[in-house]
């Protein structure tokens, strides 16, 4: 079976010369939920920005469902891979929630009743259908994060990539978002520092450091490996022991 995401020997340097990725190899199958862990500056966001072609590979390749990410495939790639950014104020830029959720599918050419249906479905999936006519600014932070997820769901992507989905959320909003993500059938990739969240939502975790993947395995095993964790500046919250959590 073709993996939904396949990254081979990916290296990338920013225009200012800073080398952010040094040969990433990665294979993710459809329906997997994978966490990307690692300290600040490890290259997690740079990797994520390659998955929908915001950055094009400097070296190596990125394939989404068999299609190589390149200039001429961007439209198809961006439909297939949805990115949810960390700050919902960056993601929600239209005057109303409805227009914001409609932005992606409208760029794909949807209009009229088809477009309305997509917007409705996406908002219903995150339980935010009732705020469609409101301005994103007037929603709570948790609601904005959920609407940000809806803006991407409306494009019906195969892969959902989330950058720090639980950051700045209060415990109840964090829980509600987890429930929503659990219910989605898409392949999910999430960059996070919230290790219990990774354990709860993602059976598999990758650890990145200095632009390479240094570990790839079951989340419970990764979090249980003290030497690995310490070497990569990862720390579990006080009192949290992954061995006490049943899968």
């Amino acid at each position, binding site marked *: 079976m073709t993996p939904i995401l396949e990254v081979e020997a990916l290296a990338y340097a920013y225009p200012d010369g800073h080398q952010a990725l040094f040969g990433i190899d990665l294979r993710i199958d459809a329906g997997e939920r994978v966490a990307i862990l690692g300290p600040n500056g490890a290259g997690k966001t740079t990797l994520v920005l390659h998955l929908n072609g915001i950055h094009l590979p400097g070296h190596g390749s990125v394939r989404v469902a068999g299609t190589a990410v390149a200039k001429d495939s961007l439209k198809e790639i961006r439909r297939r891979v949805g*990115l949810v950014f960390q700050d919902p104020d*960056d993601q929600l830029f*239209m*005057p109303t929630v409805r227009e914001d959720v*409609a932005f992606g599918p*409208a*760029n794909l050419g949807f209009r*009229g009743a088809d477009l309305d249906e997509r917007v409705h479905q996406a908002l219903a999936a995150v339980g935010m259908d009732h705020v469609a006519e409101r*301005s994103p*600014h007037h929603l709570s932070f948790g609601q904005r994060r959920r609407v940000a997820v809806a803006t991407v769901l409306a494009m019906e992507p195969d892969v959902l990539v989330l950058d720090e989905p639980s950051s700045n959320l209060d415990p109840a909003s964090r829980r509600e978002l987890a429930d929503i993500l659990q219910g989605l059938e898409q392949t999910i990739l999430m960059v996070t520092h919230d290790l219990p969240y990774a354990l709860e939502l993602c059976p598999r975790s990758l650890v990145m450091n200095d632009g390479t993947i240094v570990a790839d395995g079951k989340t419970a095993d990764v979090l249980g490996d003290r030497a690995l964790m310490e070497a990569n500046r990862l720390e579990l919250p006080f009192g949290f022991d992954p061995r006490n959590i049943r899968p």
Partner: protein
Amino acid sequence: MAGTHASSLHVPGDSSVHRLSPQCKLAAAVAFVFIVVATPREQIWAFGVYAMALVAVARLAAIPPGLVARRLSIDTPFLAFAAFLPFFAGGDQLGHGWWSLSVDGLWAAWNIVAKGTLGVTTSIILTGTTPLPALIAGLDRLHAPRAFTAITSFMVRYAEVIAGEMHRMKIARESRGHDPRWIWQIRAIAHSAGTLFVRSYERGERVHLAMRSRGFDGAMPRFSDDAAARRDWLTAAVLPAAALVVAAGAWVVQT
């Protein structure tokens, strides 16, 4: 905060004026203002009729007169400028010595006061009965350049975000004992303004990234495909049509 102010211009209601399609209201308002401006200033009665027409529309839309009066204060700088004209303009003078008033100046002042006030009142009624996003959609329907409507809608969307950031920076300054009283203490505020500019610029880049991620390729999609009903156009046309009759009458009397 500018943003809060902008979004609170709308006076919620369900009058026939509120329900009109935004593009019809916009077109009617612009046409009305042009006709008012084109009316000869000497026909004072015509401006009285215009004012009555606007009062009628405002009543229909149930916009409180007090609110219109308060918002008219934005007109004040122009009125202040107009008040100087009779003292400084040349031509025939009324009165003697330093008590004299220029006739031309008086007419010019009246022209500014009457037309300016009517124009501002028209916008107050328009913004009072139309939410900002609808106004922008209306502009879009009237084929205003897409870049212009997009920038306007971003401005509306982010005014509050940036105002919020500014407010947090102010609190952070004051929390560290900053209490500016003199002009030479402005340094910290200037630094904050610079930081705010850089942050907003970076936010712009991140928003652009988020837009590209959802398939943006330089053209904003058009959502407001719903054309206005014929009835809306006809209803909205009543005000400028009536004004046109008055203006034509004024020109006939004038010549």
